[in-house]
């Protein structure tokens, strides 16, 4: 019996982070919470793996970070998308749509 929550597929975490940040800037904990809510607890994201991903995206120039006061009044590191980040997100959405479309077609072909 497989677990109801499955680990996030390799390589998709970056895309999800970019998507969440495209709505509004957020800090690491905020991103973690939103991932949890949006995926309705279907996808399991290891909270720890979020930070290496964030730093990697920042080093690639897709994210920028600044320390700002958070909703609790305490300073937190807020990430937001750069121009390059937006372009990357558009590109990844496009290729994801093509990939998932292709996978669906193959499944439908098999069940016909």
């Amino acid at each position, binding site marked *: 019996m497989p677990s109801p929550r499955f680990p996030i597929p390799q390589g998709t975490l970056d895309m999800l982070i970019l998507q969440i940040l495209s709505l509004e800037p957020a800090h690491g*904990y905020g991103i973690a919470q939103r991932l949890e809510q949006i995926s309705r607890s279907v996808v399991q994201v*290891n909270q*720890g*793996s979020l930070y*290496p991903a964030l730093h990697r995206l920042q*080093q690639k120039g897709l994210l920028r970070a600044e320390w700002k006061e*958070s909703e609790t009044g305490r300073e937190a*590191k807020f990430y937001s998308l750069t121009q390059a980040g937006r372009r990357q997100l558009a590109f990844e959405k496009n290729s994801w749509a093509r990939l998932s479309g292709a996978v669906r077609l193959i499944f439908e072909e098999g069940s016909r």
Partner: protein
Amino acid sequence: MIQLWNWFRRGSLERGLDRELQYHFDRRVGDLTASGIPEPEARRRVAVELGLAQVREEVRDVWLTRWFRDFLYDLRFSARSFLRSPGFTAVTLLSLALGIGATTAIYSLVDQVILHALPIKDPARVVLVDWDGDHVAGGFGSWNLMSYPICRDLQQQSQFFDGVLCRAEIDVNLAAGGDPKPVAAEIVSGSYFPVLGVGPSLGRVLEAEDDGAPGAGAVVVLSYSFWQAQFGGALDVIGRKVLINNHPMTVVGVAAAGFGGVDVGAVPALWLPASMYAEALPGAEDLLSSPIRWMQILARLRPGVSPAQAQAGLQPWFKAWLPDNMLRPGFPMISADRRRDYLGSTLTLTSAPQGHAPLRRSLSEPLWVLFAATGVLLGLACLNVAGLFLARGSARGRDWHPPRPRRFPRPDRPPAPCR
């Protein structure tokens, strides 16, 4: 190079990461306790969930790739261990410096004297023409001496040569508006500069017309470095009258920069045409038509002709030339035996891309030996250093283990957010 930059600001990167993780940790604990989980239990659960040590290590791998970090740690480790024992380091450095320094010094000498081709057009085609056998005729100077007439006659052998030059090293007294002083000079045939393919950097070089009848070409060409040193690079030096051994001559040009004659061991200050032999070499007899030997002959082979081919091809001509040479005024009376030896002489051609250099001939073997010796010295220095390391290693005793390179920050620092 973002990695190197990250290395230098790693302190502030670490502090930022600590703060960021601390924030996450505190918020999560806060949320869990609000939902009714007791705080110690919440802390424990969050610590497991986040896996702080692992996260830190993974983020550091983003900042600096693993091999780069390890390399920097190794570098730091060796620098530290060298600083810990300055005496040992000094001895090691000194041994290596001596070995390397000696080898480089001798190699640069070898390169200059033996390996370096002349700064002329296509030096690979230049050959030295020499006489193998009994010359009979007398001469002055040293090494590979030939007469001026044979040089001129060789120039007719255009099926083998693009041109033939002859030259001799002399000392002259030069006065340029002051007291005369001795300088090194090269007295050359009119073909000298054209055959070598060396042009002027100012004015003109010596030409065939300068080397006509005796006394016809009262002109000199200065070397570039002599012009710079003695005339301060003055542009009006062209046309100036100078006294060579008290005979007035006109400066007509300055040779190309970097060109210092065809002998690395004797750099001339100026060049004179052979037609001025009487002024340049006081007391000399009729050098232009007598068999007296006083010059070296260099020739430029035609493209595609090898020295061996030219040497073989020249012998019939030379056999015919030898009896003619005996008719020249000043050729000594000789016995029949001597005459047979003389007529059995041959010409030899050897490749001479580095020009004519008695220095090279006399030095090349000792220089190579010296070079080999410095190579051995370098080997000994390396052996010496290896011995030093070995001695230090065994002095440390058995219980010594190489320390593991530390990852930054100090691993002894407790993971801060877990408190």
